[in-house]
């Protein structure tokens, strides 16, 4: 363990003597004396890690006498005035270093006073503010009282629907969905719409899983050669069934059973030594405190915090719940000799039950986090939900629940209502979305730095990377695919289901090594460059425009697909029927070193009607073959083309000949079988020209059914605006949009799509 200390925090304040213990003295002692004089087995019983340690001293007596370096043993030892000189058998301290120690001792050995942010004055338990209104009206009543005036009239139906669809499904409402909603004349139709969107468990889960992936650091398939485990399946299930939030948290903190989300407690680990502040129990403590309780333990996982009231022992107390046994405490990666036992951040909740075994520890943590008396759990969560829906929390930063809320009553009422409804997350969402407050027009202007925040309505919120990609997909019909490893059909994917791309990383999909509770909404130049000329979006738009104009025919299906193959030979006897041409393709899947993979088709033969065989390697290469003859299309000799680097493609003209079967033994060349290449490739045979981007065509419906786009440019523009922005174009806009389409070419539509998707109105939830 340890040896890569990264105490990220050092105090910014200097002491009266202009010398800082934590910044100047402690690191010096740590570096020069720490290897012997620290921890449970400190030499001569002397630890030099804290002021108290030094005053207490070891077998030779106190190490320091505060106020007198002359009488301090520490100085006598490091100067050699008293033998043996320290550090023992090592280079003596430099004069400047001794001077620092002297000055510090002479100044009375001061220890920097932390300037802790004040602990919240809010009681831990929830209060239930009294409001003279029915439960449906309380939020609005509190906001009206706060504003001192009536809440602004709600936004129009379509804008409301766009908000709601993006907030609940992460998808744009289609023009048909908008029409239906606008035509609806029933009372409470907005609440009804929210209810019906919430009722679609799959779509709801497919959106909110991104929120949780960010918070819980869950990322599919990202490993660092150390332990890490996906909790996607559990998370998806929990969201689909709307697992009550208290049970949700309990399952994460105390995973039981094979399907349990133990990946959360396992954390993100790299092979090798890690700082004591990043071992798995400490990661679990930091992350659970931050995400569920709005407590930042990052500083005090290493030392007492200088910016909050949290102490090193608080972090270890919590971490000990997630360890197998009591933990020895390390201060800045140096053992202190003190042992931490499980103790909750809010000691008033600590129980009296025995907490010894690992299972008991986790169970107790789960109980403490979620007990009714712990109002911090629901407050933290409702604040995060509020922040997600309004762009800013009732408390900011949302990771520091000790900070004041702009409306304490609102916070506590909402949290109480949430708990009172059995921690039902969908209830909470519906409660907020039914208010006039949620339906207020967006308040666009930024607050000036330094000025206190005043709530004036929801802030415009940037589409998340996944929302953006899915919105583009729903309009263009271009979705990424999940390709099975065995031969079979592909499935359309929502963006969250696959690894990030250059596009989604540019749009803010985080690397989930750390908890992400807020994605920065600020547009950046790098991201604008990615949108302007990145290959990912360019391909989506160009295919999308063709698709919308009906120019894309369904991709042909292979007559042979080996599935993912590695070392074994793939024997194929593929029946041919009326084939005029053949394409033999080899694609890399995810070889360790794809550039060194050599693969090919051995003994490839065509069998004729009468059983006669034609060896592919005997064919004649011909860039432009004549009709009717069997030819290898291309310039290379068949023997070279049949075995080579991957990916590769061979085209064969069968002419008029009538073959019944293609035989081959496909595989990886011996020299590519080394473990540092680790080939994983896939062989395909097609009889129609394959679509290289859709070798395995998708089956089934895409996440949003593809629209049929009007041929008439003006109608197309109308539909496009309606889908992308939930409104009709103004006459002026229609004019410009039609300019894009004037030449009647696909690229005009491609460019119009780009312009719309790059517009602020598209990229923000207004």
């Amino acid at each position, binding site marked *: 363990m340890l*040896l*890569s*200390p*990264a*105490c*990220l*925090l*050092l105090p*910014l304040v*200097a002491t009266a003597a202009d010398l800082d213990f934590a910044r100047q003295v402690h*690191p010096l002692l740590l570096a020069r004396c720490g290897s012997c004089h620290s921890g449970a087995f400190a030499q001569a019983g002397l630890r030099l890690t804290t002021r108290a340690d030094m005053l207490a001293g070891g077998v030779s007596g106190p190490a320091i006498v505060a106020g007198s370096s002359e009488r301090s043993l520490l100085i006598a030892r490091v100067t050699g005035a008293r033998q043996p000189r320290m550090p023992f058998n090592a280079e003596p301290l430099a004069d400047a270093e001794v001077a620092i120690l002297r000055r510090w001792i002479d100044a009375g050995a001061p220890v920097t006073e932390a300037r802790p*942010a004040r602990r919240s004055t809010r009681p831990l338990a929830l209060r239930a503010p009294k409001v003279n209104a029915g439960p449906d009206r309380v939020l609005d009543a509190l906001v009206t009282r706060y504003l001192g005036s009536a809440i602004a009239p709600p936004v129009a139906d379509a804008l409301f629907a766009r908000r709601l669809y993006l907030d609940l499904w992460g998808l744009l409402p289609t023009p048909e969905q908008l029409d239906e909603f606008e035509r609806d004349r029933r009372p409470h139709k907005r609440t009804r719409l929210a209810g019906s969107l919430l009722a679609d468990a799959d779509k709801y889960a497919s959106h909110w899983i991104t929120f949780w992936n960010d918070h819980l650091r869950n990322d599919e398939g990202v490993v*660092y*050669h150390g332990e890490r485990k996906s909790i996607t399946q559990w998370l998806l299930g929990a969201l689909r069934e709307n697992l009550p939030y208290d049970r949700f948290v309990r399952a994460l903190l105390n995973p039981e059973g094979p399907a349990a989300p133990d990946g959360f407690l396992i954390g*993100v680990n*790299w*092979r090798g*030594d890690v*700082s004591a*502040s*990043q071992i798995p129990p400490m990661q679990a403590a*930091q992350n659970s405190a931050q995400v569920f309780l709005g407590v930042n333990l*990052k500083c005090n996982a290493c030392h007492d915090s200088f910016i909050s009231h949290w102490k090193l022992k608080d972090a270890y107390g919590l971490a000990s719940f997630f360890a197998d046994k009591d933990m020895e405490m390390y201060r800045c990666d140096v053992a202190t000799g003190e042992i931490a036992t499980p103790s909750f951040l809010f000691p008033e909740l600590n129980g009296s039950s025995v907490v010894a075994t690992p299972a008991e520890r986790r169970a107790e943590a789960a109980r403490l986090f979620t007990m009714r008396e712990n109002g911090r759990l629901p407050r933290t969560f409702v604040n995060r939900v509020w922040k997600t829906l309004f762009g800013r929390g009732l408390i900011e930063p949302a990771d520091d629940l000790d900070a004041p809320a702009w409306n304490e009553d609102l916070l506590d009422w909402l949290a109480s209502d949430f708990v009172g409804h059995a921690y039902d997350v969908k209830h909470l969402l519906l409660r907020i979305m039914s208010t006039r407050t949620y339906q207020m027009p967006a308040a*666009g*202007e*930024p607050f000036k*730095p*330094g000025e206190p925040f005043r709530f004036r309505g929801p802030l415009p919120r*940037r589409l998340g990377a996944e929302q953006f990609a899915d919105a583009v997909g729903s309009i263009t019909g271009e979705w990424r695919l999940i390709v099975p490893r065995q031969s079979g059909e592909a499935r359309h994917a929502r963006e969250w289901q696959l690894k990030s791309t250059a596009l989604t*990383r540019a749009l*803010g999909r985080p*690397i989930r*090594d*750390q908890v992400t509770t*807020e994605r*920065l909404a*600020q*547009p*950046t*130049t*790098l991201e*604008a*460059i990615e949108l*302007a*000329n990145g290959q990912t979006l*360019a391909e989506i738009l160009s295919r999308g425009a063709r698709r919308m104009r009906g120019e894309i025919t369904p991709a042909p299906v292979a007559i042979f697909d080996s599935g993912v193959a590695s070392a074994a030979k793939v024997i194929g006897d593929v029946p041919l029927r009326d084939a005029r041409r053949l394409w033999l393709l080899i694609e890399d899947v995810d*070889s*360790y*070193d794809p550039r060194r993979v050599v693969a090919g088709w051995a003994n490839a033969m065509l069998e004729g009607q009468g059983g006669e065989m034609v060896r592919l390697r005997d064919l004649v290469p011909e860039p432009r073959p004549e009709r009717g003859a069997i030819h290898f299309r291309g310039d290379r000799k068949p023997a070279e083309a049949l075995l080579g680097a991957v990916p590769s493609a061979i085209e064969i003209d069968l002419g008029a000949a009538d073959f019944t079967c293609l035989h081959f033994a496909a595989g990886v060349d011996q020299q590519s079988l080394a473990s*540092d290449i*680790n080939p994983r490739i896939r062989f395909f045979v097609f009889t129609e020209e394959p679509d290289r981007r859709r070798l395995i065509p998708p089956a089934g419906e895409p996440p949003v059914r593809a629209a049929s786009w009007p041929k008439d440019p003006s109608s197309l523009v109308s539909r496009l605006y309606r889908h992308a922005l939930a409104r009709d174009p103004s006459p002026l806009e229609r*004019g*410009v*949009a039609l300019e*894009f389409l004037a030449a009647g070419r696909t*690229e005009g539509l491609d460019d119009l799509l780009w*312009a719309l998707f*790059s517009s*602020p*109105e598209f990229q923000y939830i207004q």
Partner: protein
Amino acid sequence: MPRKLAKELLAGLSRRDFMRASAGATLAALEAGAPRPVWPAAGSKIEPRADTLILLWMAGGMAQTETFDPKEYTAFETGLESKAVLSTFPAIDTKVDSIRISQGLERIASVMDRATLIRTYQAGDLGFILHSRHQYHWHTGYAPPLSVAAPHLGAVIARSLGPRKPDVPAFLDIGQNLEIGAESDPLKAFHTAGFLGAEHGPFLVPDPLEAAASVRPPAGMSQERFRGRYERYRKLIEASPMMKHGSGFHRESLLRAQENAHRLLSSPAAKAFDLSLEPKESFDSYNTGRFGLSCLLARRLTEAGARFIEVTTEYIPFRHWDTHENGHTRALAMKREIDAPVAQLVLDLEERGLLDRTLIVLASEFGRDMMVEGRPDKRVRDQVSQQPEVMTEMKHYGMHRHFTEAGSVLLIGGGVKKGFLYGRTADERPCKVIDRPVRIEDLHATMYHALGIPPDLAYEVEKRPFHVTRDGKGRPITDVFA
């Protein structure tokens, strides 16, 4: 941080803020939670010696004894004892009497009189050799896992100094493909600006020959169409009823980002990315392969006004400098790849009068040895296929193990001493550091110092300071500066 202090700091930063604003970030970014700098308590202003930093990254662990720290040479013969071999190349003279380097680096030897050579870089002791984790540590100064996302060195520089020219991204990364198979994710984990925010992240140019495409319209789109698309886009935005009401602040931030992107993509500076514009003779003098051409691109971008450029031989497990076997032959090939372009880069920058204000740093995540994995006193699990005691084949001949005790770093230009040797390693195995060790925080502090950034500069994240060198403790090696 007290608000008053913050205000003063920001007032002091107004010029830089202006530059950043002009480059795409906006003052609104500060409000949006972008990290603010916390200047060091005892920091005095450092006069920058260099405006640009070029990091030449020897990815995969460059064997110091086969490059810049040659030891006794033993020629290959069958039956040779492994432990008898310290270097598989003879040493050659350089322009500097006191410095000898390894055969195969003749061109670099000829410019050694412009360089400072550090032979005593000690890599992080991370308990296990994982190239990408050591590279993460080298590039950020911190070893993962971490509780906050650490920024890449280039991002720190981009954030602290901003771009030199608004049309050239402040942080350019040339030659590294991030999709390299098994270690892709660890690479991505540090090729970021971390908590500093994506604005300061790397502008990635995986292939120098395709660099022009990264500042051109997407494939298949003419310049004319690209310009026309943007012009109509502006018209469409102006025609939008949202221009009259709705959120001005967000709209403007986004439009400014688009404006910056399009200015960059159509600016004359974008020509710097296009290697086809380089005269043939010059192109050929760099063209030893991808790395060589990346050096050429770095030169062009330095001329155009780049701030930080990393040029890599590219990390791919078991390739390039990651010599697990056949080390001699592969080191020879790598030296052929780097020798001419590195020297040419130095000469070209010098000829253009840019070398004095450009610091070139050539470095690697650790060194190599034939026998020792890790450090002599702290061995780690051997990850290299068996090195036999007695060599029977040429492929056994070379530095195959990961040696973290000592490695070489070359510094050129940017105000460093010329023809200067810093630090010494033992001449007998284990070739330990025996004089003036250099740790990553000190190396970072040295690079930052050259650029005028104090080593204890910190950025505020979650209300706490994050120092640009580990805990603010890096100390510049002032000895290397002229």
